[in-house]
């Protein structure tokens, strides 16, 4: 039986070296561009069709002194992926048995619904190719027993990779150690609203995921659920009802005859 794979991000170990950013682009043969100056060490303002993995830098004053958070932002490989729910093209987004949510460009029609469906705002549309791109968790590497490129490159063990139950255990253990070390709010980010994620975070302060750029309680957007639920039922009912109703109406009542004779 296939087991679910997980990327574990221990935010306490990230040094913002950006190796994962580049490893991702290199492995996936994405073009490099020029960065912008935004007043921080972060030169890529956001994820992009050729840039699937971003380290955000956040400088702030806390009770314990200056804090410089570096946090990784990429596809979360949700248990219940909003992108997949929203995707109209069968086979364009696949959720593999091992939990990887992968975009298959050949089948992608570029509608961009996945972008709207994603509670983490991850997929990015490339206007030239009319395809949407995001992290694949290096499904090609994982399939032959290699770690995803970002994880392999990570020098500090901030990123680790493994089987889900084991990784959950590792994450909880690490959070426990952090608690012992005085970070009472330490915890694991694995939001239930999207069926859990196969990208897990260990946070020093799990009560404030927003500080790491993570939504506190992500869910698949209501409108996507409406569309894929009630609207679909309603439509099915109306279309079927319309066609069948017409048919039986005709059987019962037939056409309206012209009554008046020709002039």
């Amino acid at each position, binding site marked *: 039986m296939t087991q679910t794979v997980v990327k574990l991000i221990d935010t306490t170990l990230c*040094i913002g070296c950006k190796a994962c950013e580049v490893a991702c682009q290199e492995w996936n043969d994405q073009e490099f561009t020029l960065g912008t100056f935004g007043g921080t060490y972060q030169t890529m303002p956001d994820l992009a069709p050729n840039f699937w993995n971003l380290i955000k830098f956040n400088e702030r004053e806390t009770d314990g002194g200056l804090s410089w958070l570096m946090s990784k932002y990429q596809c979360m490989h949700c248990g219940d992926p909003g992108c997949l729910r929203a995707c109209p093209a069968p086979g364009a987004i696949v959720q593999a048995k091992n939990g990887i949510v992968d975009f298959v460009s050949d089948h992608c029609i570029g509608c961009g619904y996945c972008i709207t469906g994603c509670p983490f705002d991850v997929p990015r549309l490339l206007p030239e190719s009319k395809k949407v791109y995001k992290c694949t968790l290096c499904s090609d590497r994982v399939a032959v027993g290699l770690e995803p490129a970002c994880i392999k490159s990570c020098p500090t063990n901030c990123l680790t990779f493994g089987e889900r139950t084991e990784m959950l255990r590792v994450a909880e253990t690490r959070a426990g150690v952090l608690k012992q070390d005085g970070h009472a709010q330490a915890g694991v980010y694995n939001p239930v609203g999207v069926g859990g994620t196969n990208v897990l975070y260990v946070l020093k302060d799990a009560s404030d995921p927003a500080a790491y750029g993570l939504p506190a309680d992500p869910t698949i957007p209501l409108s996507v659920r409406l569309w894929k639920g009630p609207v679909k039922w309603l439509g099915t009912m109306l279309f079927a009802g319309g066609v069948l109703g017409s048919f039986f109406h005709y059987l019962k009542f037939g056409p309206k005859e012209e009554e008046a004779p020709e002039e």
Partner: protein
Amino acid sequence: MTNGWTDVANADVILVMGGNPAENHPVGFRFVMEARLKRKAKLVCVDPRFTRTAAVADLYVPIRSGTDIAFLGGLIHRAVSTGKYQADYVRQHTNAGFLIQEGFGFADGHFTGWNAEKKSYDKSTWQYELGPDGFAKVDPSLEHPRCVFQLMRQHYARYTAEKVSDICGCTVAEFERAADEILVAHAANKSGTVLYALGWTQHSHAVQLIHAAAMVQLLMGNIGMPGGGVNAQRGHANIQGSTDMGAWNMLPGYLKIPRANLTSLDEYLHANTPKALRPDAMNYWGNTPKFMVSLLKAYYGADATAGNQFGYQWLPKIAEGANHSWAYFFDHMTEGKIDGLISWGMNPVANGPNTKKMLMGLAKLKWMIVAEVFETETAGFWKAKELAEKYYPQAGDAASIQTEVFLLPASCFAEKDGAFVNSSRWLQWKETNLEPPGDAKRDQEIMSRLFLKIRELYEKEGGTAPEPLRMMKWDYATPYAPSLTEVTREVSGRDLSTGKQVSGFGELKDDGSTVSGCWIYSGSYPESGNLMARKGQDDPTGLGLFPNYSWSWPANRRILYNRASLDTAGKPWDETRAPLRWDGLRWKGDVPDYKADAKPSQYGSFVMLPEGVARLFAPELVEGPFPEHYEPAESPVENALHPEVSFNPMAWVIQGAGDQLGVAKDYPYVGISYRLTEHFHYWTKNTAASAQLQSNFFVEVPEALAKEKNIASGDIVRVTSARGKVEGPALVTKRLRPLKISGRTVYHVGLPIHWGFIGRIHGPLINNLTASVYDPNSGTPEYKGFLVNLEKV
């Protein structure tokens, strides 16, 4: 590094100071993280900037650039005055008990023997007191008032926490907290490591700074211990190897280039072979004749015979008083004393202090040869006016520059085999499967063809002194493109009598029967093959020594001075962490820094030194046997310890054309240059990935200073020094904390290097700002801590 990257994981406390491994050695930093995860090691980061290392440190302490000796002196004072030093280690393994001559002292910024006129020291009082037997006198109780320990205690008594705070700008509480963490390592079963880099070496008192770190580590009993040591994180792939192979006044293997007064090999060997200072000192440098003769045999082959002093006469001799240091090259060029420059992959225009001066010098050359992978600012120096007139208005037009330039396309790392020596002193062999692009050639071929061409001209036409040129052996199987395997076999060494490769420098001889191009690498390529290419994964000690992975100089030893991890009786200081054990007959574990079968008490534990023990007191350094806090040559404040001798009295302050020093009145802020993790030096401005990660030059400005000057992030600012200027957008940050120095606020201005006027991305060269001030021991420029002004454009 005395120890090595993998060994950092054995530390209990890690002091990062004068370095920023999270940014500049991110992969090496993984061992810091491992120590923290596995050993709960504490990471203390001391730096003027809150770096990415500081961001993950347990404790960050800001200090003013160039005040590290004050901080370390404070640690020494605190250790000695509170008893937090490993007393047995200090007594057994250092020169703490050695008596110093009567009259030695320190007052008002100078050690004894200062000659104000000559600006130099008479070191006669800095010497050990010798007994009638010719050996140094030692007081094992460490109580003699003239013993090194007492002199040290006295010297650092001035370095109180308050003084440290006053000089460095951290608070007393911050210093004390850091000291408490660091001095934990004085316990015999605790190890602390020190990781440094160019934040220490690029000061006018750099070598003393590292000496101070070594003293702290000796007091903590950390030298020779796993998880200890003084560890230089080298900034280029083969800094270690290119140093080992000799530059400036060195031959390969740290043998000195002869001076003119040493007219024969005998005189040279006599002058350069130290004599033991203690009866139990192994004094390994006593073997200097074997190393030197083997080198001469490598250079001159069969032509080197006992009868002609093994070709000693063909080696160049340095004139008394001459200094062929980088520090003087460009003045000599400007003065017309230099005809030409050959640069094998170096970029002085970008790298050297005071760029304007570099440009002026090169413009006076008749010719210049540059072998490179990319066009550099040096190769294209004559375009400076065209490409960056803003910064070099006084540079000449290309038309006025008469230098003839050859830019030769060389090959990159992946297109060549050969070995790099990493910071851990591991010689790691590379393979290659690639040809250089286009018409580019491998460096060994470029160099050999040029050498052979010159020799051919001399053979055809004659000329001045063809002999040294003709005698230098270049008899490789393919002389115009030597196989690097063949070269490395020559370096490792051969026994001429058997024709076999030697297995180590222990087999080298001074009778001309052995060859070795660099004695410390001897044994890297024995009969059994290329040990540098090994990939063995075994780690019998569990300490991360990996004896069968690559090859480590010297003798495949992974932890230098490992003999000091045990007491004189042979008992490890820490049983759980012993790199070496004595089994009654032989030493087991790491390759011992000791005679392999000598009893624990037979020799002193530091076999290379004539004392047989480590030096707390180091008289060979030019500005004093103890490190003393001196300000940078350009400082915003005067020296709080001795205002009349503010900066290192022995520092080389070059006053050539274009050289000026600024004062705080005109240039009130402290400029510091540094690397960013996203770039490598001045190369990656040519590569797409790094150009994306940091595309733009910027100036880091402390928030408070920005407020004062009404500067917002993104505003263009101009930073000026007495030498030049740079301009770029401001990056306003909280990470540069204003420091209170003697009641005044001092700001640092952060200046990342990496940009230049030739490349995929462009920006100013930071060395427009830096000064021609050098450490007098090493000849390294003071790139950190110079004075600048800052204004909004």
